[in-house]
């Protein structure tokens, strides 16, 4: 059904003026195969059964919804953390890779490729490939290989081949370019597991559907805890936008729920070293979809910057571009320094070390005018084990007294 007021994807693969599939002919057959089959495959009872049982027994879902007392007091609202960090492999990314590996099997694909920034999606892909005994190749920017070294080791331990992307700023965008080129070269036998709500239609919608379990659980968990089935706010960090899409999904058309995105300002929005796509970006095409991206007047993509590898991306998923442009979601940008403050604060006050990406969602809490009995859900998208080296170096460099 096409509904112009919908925040869901349209029949043609669009979210308002964003989305679509702008791909060279070499990828048409593959993307078309997924587009024509994904909804039917996902709806099959045996798919649903396998998906749900893996999420429960393998991933460890449902992930807890935890009322964080100290930060609730600090910000003057009931702040719940949706503990995606407690999933197997340590982030929300595995919800999507479980779904896509089951799809890949049903499409008869023998070879799996993925891009990764922070390495969480790479680890989640390597994990499901080990589980399903499929070949796994992960593209990762050379800069990210250094700053997220623990995840590189995990991928190797799981039997995946990690291939460095050496072009551009050697980060997530460049890893995605390399993965797409691999897909063109090996289209017939390969499924590309995109790790965020980006790429040509139907990827943003497919990834969103696999992540939608997050908001589905928030609904009943919050009801159990508060008697209300909806929060007043849902807050998530946004790189490409998969954890945010999952946390928002069941509330998209519920006007009682304010949707908040946190993007990476890097060294500051106007510093020339930023990944604040919604502010610095304009409408254009990146990785096969129409969305907001950082680019020059000539349409050249601008290299982004964020201390956080998972948010260091010059685009944003088309669903979020639409949510932002239509006013349904509000975006705040947090700098590296603000995110680091939030990391230290959550570690010390709640005993939870968040991923650097996730910390951006925590860093903007003081800018939102909460009312005292507001129920606020922050999607705690991942844990910070992978970032410990970055954290300790930062603390030392900035002579922070703990």
């Amino acid at each position, binding site marked *: 059904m096409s509904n112009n007021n919908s925040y869901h994807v349209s029949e043609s693969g669009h979210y308002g003026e964003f989305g679509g599939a702008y791909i060279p002919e070499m990828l048409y*057959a593959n993307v078309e195969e997924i587009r024509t089959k994904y909804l039917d495959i996902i709806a099959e009872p045996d798919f649903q059964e396998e998906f749900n049982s893996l999420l429960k027994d393998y991933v460890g879902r449902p992930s807890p919804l935890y009322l964080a007392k100290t930060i609730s007091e600090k910000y003057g609202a009931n702040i719940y953390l949706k503990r995606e960090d407690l999933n197997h492999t340590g982030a929300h990314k595995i919800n999507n890779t479980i779904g896509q590996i089951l799809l890949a099997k049903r499409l008869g694909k023998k070879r799996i490729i993925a891009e990764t920034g922070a390495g969480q999606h790479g680890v989640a892909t390597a994990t499901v490939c080990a589980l399903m005994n499929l070949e796994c190749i992960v593209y990762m920017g050379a800069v990210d290989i250094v700053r997220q070294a623990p995840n590189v080791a995990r991928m190797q331990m799981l039997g995946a081949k990690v291939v460095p992307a050496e072009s*551009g700023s050697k980060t997530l965008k460049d890893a995605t370019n390399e993965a797409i080129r691999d897909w063109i070269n090996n289209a017939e036998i390969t499924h590309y597991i995109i790790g965020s709500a980006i790429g040509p239609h139907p990827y943003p919608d497919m990834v969103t559907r696999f992540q939608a379990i997050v908001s589905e659980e928030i609904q009943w968990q919050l009801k159990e805890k508060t008697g209300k089935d909806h929060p007043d706010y849902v807050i998530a960090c946004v790189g490409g936008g998969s954890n945010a899409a999952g946390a928002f999904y069941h509330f998209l058309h519920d006007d009682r729920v304010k949707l908040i995105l946190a993007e990476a300002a890097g060294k500051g929005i106007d510093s020339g070293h930023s990944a604040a796509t919604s502010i610095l970006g304009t409408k254009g095409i990146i990785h096969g979809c129409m969305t907001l991206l950082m680019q020059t007047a*000539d349409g050249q993509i601008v290299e982004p910057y964020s201390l956080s590898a998972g948010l260091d991306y010059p685009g944003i998923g088309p669903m979020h571009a639409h949510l932002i442009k239509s006013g349904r979601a509000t975006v705040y940008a947090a700098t590296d320094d603000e995110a680091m403050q939030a990391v230290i604060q959550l570690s010390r006050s709640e005993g939870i070390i968040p991923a650097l990406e996730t910390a951006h969602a925590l860093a903007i809490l003081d800018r939102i005018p909460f009312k005292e009995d507001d129920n606020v859900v922050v999607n705690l998208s991942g844990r910070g084990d992978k970032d410990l080296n970055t954290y300790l170096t930062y603390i030392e460099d900035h002579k922070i007294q703990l």
Partner: protein
Amino acid sequence: MKTIRQTIIEKGNNILNVYFTAGHPTLESTEIIMKSLADTGVDLIELGMPYSDPLADGPTIQRSSEIALKNGQTISNIFQNVKNIRKTHQIPIIMMGYFNQMLQYGAERFISDAHLSGIQGLIIPDMPMEIYERDYQNLFIEYQMEISFLVTPMTSHERIFQADRLSSAFLYIVSQSSITGNQSGISDEQLAYFGAIQSMNLQSPTLIGFGIHDKETREIANKYSNGAIVGSAFIRTLENSKDYSATIQSFMSRLESQ
């Protein structure tokens, strides 16, 4: 001036279309290379607009694009290059780039400026045929801009007919399912695919590209279509060239049958 399609149809076979990235190795080289190609008897020039993120391109074109952008290449400058050589040379020129470049420049302004500079055709590999037909075909017709769509070994018959119908320059037959610059030789499977397209009685002339790099691969392209498109192999010879004209002559003789 003759259209690209007329040029191909009149000569009929052994068409040679040479691709290179505008602004590589240097900004100044673009006009010299175009003139030199025309003077050496090349039939068609395919001018690449360097892009920051060329998804369908292999390492050679990635590198040439990066260098061209570092040299400060812009779309306006490419239009100016073409305008300049039009004073002396009539060789048909088709420009190839990514859809985002055309959109950011402004689609109508882009097509109109390309036309005014003397560019006769465009290849935009990531512009979907459906979008072209819905939003841009009328503009292309208005500005007498020709277009070529790509087909690959994975393209269905139905889509090959669609690409044939919408292409006003030639139909671009991508020789293998790969990015540009792959030189793995031509398999029996590929020959069967070329043969199948040949027997479809398409209305457009056809050129085979991707992986054409020597006499043998060019001969195959000539046999199964109206001719060949050579890109990465040519760009590689330019990389260390001191004398573009001499480099181009020796490269062309490598592609000629005895």
